[in-house]
């Protein structure tokens, strides 16, 4: 345990205002003011709304990533969350404030199944199992026509309902700024939660399991339960993000939400930003996605996503700790 504590202080978990925290606060402040800075430019706002949503995916992925596991199957949670919330709101007419948490629980249920299947697997074999796992909810959604409308997908999903706070009327339907702040608040909550998890006993246990599983079990950490619990948390928030995606974009189909894209994206951001850091994954999402949308997409309309593969290859070969991880290592 002593080893873990010293490791943490090296990773900037010490108290007081460190350069780490200052840059984090400045970044959040910039994000808060972004709608003012871009003068309501809807395209830029939309891109950053999506970037924040992808950042939440990367943060959720990283809860599991902290234990050292690499999952290639988070699209299963994303898609099931999106479908659960979409179907509940469309067919049963439930309010989104109920369906979105339910979507999280659906995804967590799927995470439980996946956790049971993958319990014995480590490292590469775990990654392969998660890769195969996506196919199952995807094919079922594709074929269960009566409930999911099959491969055509769901069109015209309800958007977020407008809120009335006293005299303040917030309409998510027409205002991109409102949608932006909605996702921003979710992002902040998740960032806070991930920060809390990293410092909590759960986080310490997961890091111990990552570093040396047998030794961690010897000091009384129940590795399997902790790993499963982190999988459930990770799946829950991925499902919530999937539900948010469904109601923001308002169109989903099995190939889209269960596609490899949504498995790859959180993993790429987490590995490029730094798997074992709190804000690295979010930072990577907020840099790489806008870079892709503003520069690579106009340049190469088809095939611009090679950028994601290229940054992943670069990170694995030259920056295994991720760029935020490397910066932290240098400053400390």
């Amino acid at each position, binding site marked *: 345990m002593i080893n873990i504590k010293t490791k943490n202080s090296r990773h900037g978990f010490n108290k007081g205002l460190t350069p780490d925290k200052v840059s984090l606060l400045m970044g959040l402040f910039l994000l808060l003011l972004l709608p003012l800075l871009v003068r309501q430019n809807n395209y830029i706002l939309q891109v950053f709304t999506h970037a924040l949503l992808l950042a939440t995916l990367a943060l959720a992925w990283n809860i599991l990533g902290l234990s050292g596991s690499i999952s290639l199957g988070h699209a299963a949670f994303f898609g099931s969350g999106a479908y659960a919330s979409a179907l509940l709101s469309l067919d049963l007419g439930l309010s989104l404030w109920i369906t979105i948490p339910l979507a999280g629980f659906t995804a967590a249920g799927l995470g439980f199944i996946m956790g049971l299947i993958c319990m014995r697997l480590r490292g590469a074999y775990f990654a392969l199992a998660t890769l195969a796992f996506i196919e*199952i909810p995807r094919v079922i959604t594709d074929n269960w026509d009566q409930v999911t409308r099959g491969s055509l997908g769901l069109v015209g999903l309800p958007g977020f309902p407008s809120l009335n706070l006293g005299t303040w009327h917030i309409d998510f339907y027409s205002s991109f700024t409102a949608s932006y702040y909605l996702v921003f608040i979710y992002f902040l909550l998740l960032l806070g939660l991930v920060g809390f998890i990293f410092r909590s006993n759960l986080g310490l246990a997961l890091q111990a399991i990552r570093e040396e599983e047998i030794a961690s079990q010897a000091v009384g950490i129940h590795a399997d339960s902790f790993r499963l619990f982190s999988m459930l948390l990770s799946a829950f928030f991925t499902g919530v993000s999937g539900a948010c995606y469904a109601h923001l974009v308002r169109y989903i189909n099995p190939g889209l939400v269960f596609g490899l894209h949504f498995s790859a994206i959180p993993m790429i951001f987490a*590995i490029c930003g730094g798997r074992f850091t709190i804000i690295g994954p979010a930072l990577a999402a907020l840099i790489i996605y806008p870079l892709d949308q503003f520069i690579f997409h106009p340049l190469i309309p088809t095939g611009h996503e*090679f950028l994601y593969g290229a940054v992943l290859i670069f990170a694995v070969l030259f920056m*295994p700790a991720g760029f935020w991880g490397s910066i932290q290592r240098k400053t400390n």
Partner: protein
Amino acid sequence: MWTTVLVSGISIGSFYILIALGFALIFGVTRYFNLAHGELVVLAGYVAYWLWDVYALSFVLTFPVAILVLFLICLGLKRLFARLTEPLELNSIVLSFGMAIVIQNSMLFLFSGNYRLIRIPFLNKNFHFHEVYMSYGQLTLLLLSLIVIFLLYILMYRTYLGKALRATIQDKEAAALAGINVTIMGTFAFCLGAVLIGLAGPLYGCTHYLYPSTGHEVTLLAITITIFAGVGRLSGIILAGWILGLAESFTVILCGSSWREMVTALLLLILLAFKPYGILGNREP
């Protein structure tokens, strides 16, 4: 009818063996999981399609070109893999996943997302032998795959090089101690893998529709067969390929073709959950 299903299952299964062999060989010798395997097969298919469509090259002549292109790419991949740090298996998955994305998007850029098929009228003709109905395409797949498997068997079990390769697959350190240059064996595995992919790609292109994202399915197939067989067992790979082919054929007949994609994934999950080191293997990889 059931015999027809059986024969088509064996035919497609033999082709799956051909697809998986390259993956299994590279994995066995170097311990790198190459998730870009399916993308490479599809890329070889695209090369063949392009030569056949634009330059009207005879289909048989597309094989050497596809093999040559794959040779260069695989040697490049080998150099990238060689730079990886520990844990090798996991990092190779992440690295090759990135490569798969790069190759997939390059194909999207070069060949667009349209569905392509190398149409050879002869392959679609049917014939029947007693009760068994078969297309010439299925027969070609079956025969070519069996020939390649036979040649690989000769190479692996009847030559000195094959012996060295098998030794490296079984125990890298012991092989190195016995004086086998393990690095060169790795390079050789990639070269042999390139030949196998270069053979499988054009065949894939004339029996399946080519589009950039289809490679994922091929990769999953190769992984499933390799894990089923355990490491370094040619007989296991043949058995796995046939079982997978038959399972798919029967699923298509019994449940409909839309459930076919789940067979591979389900089989892989069951394998990983209960027998992660292969049906035939009992030691840790």
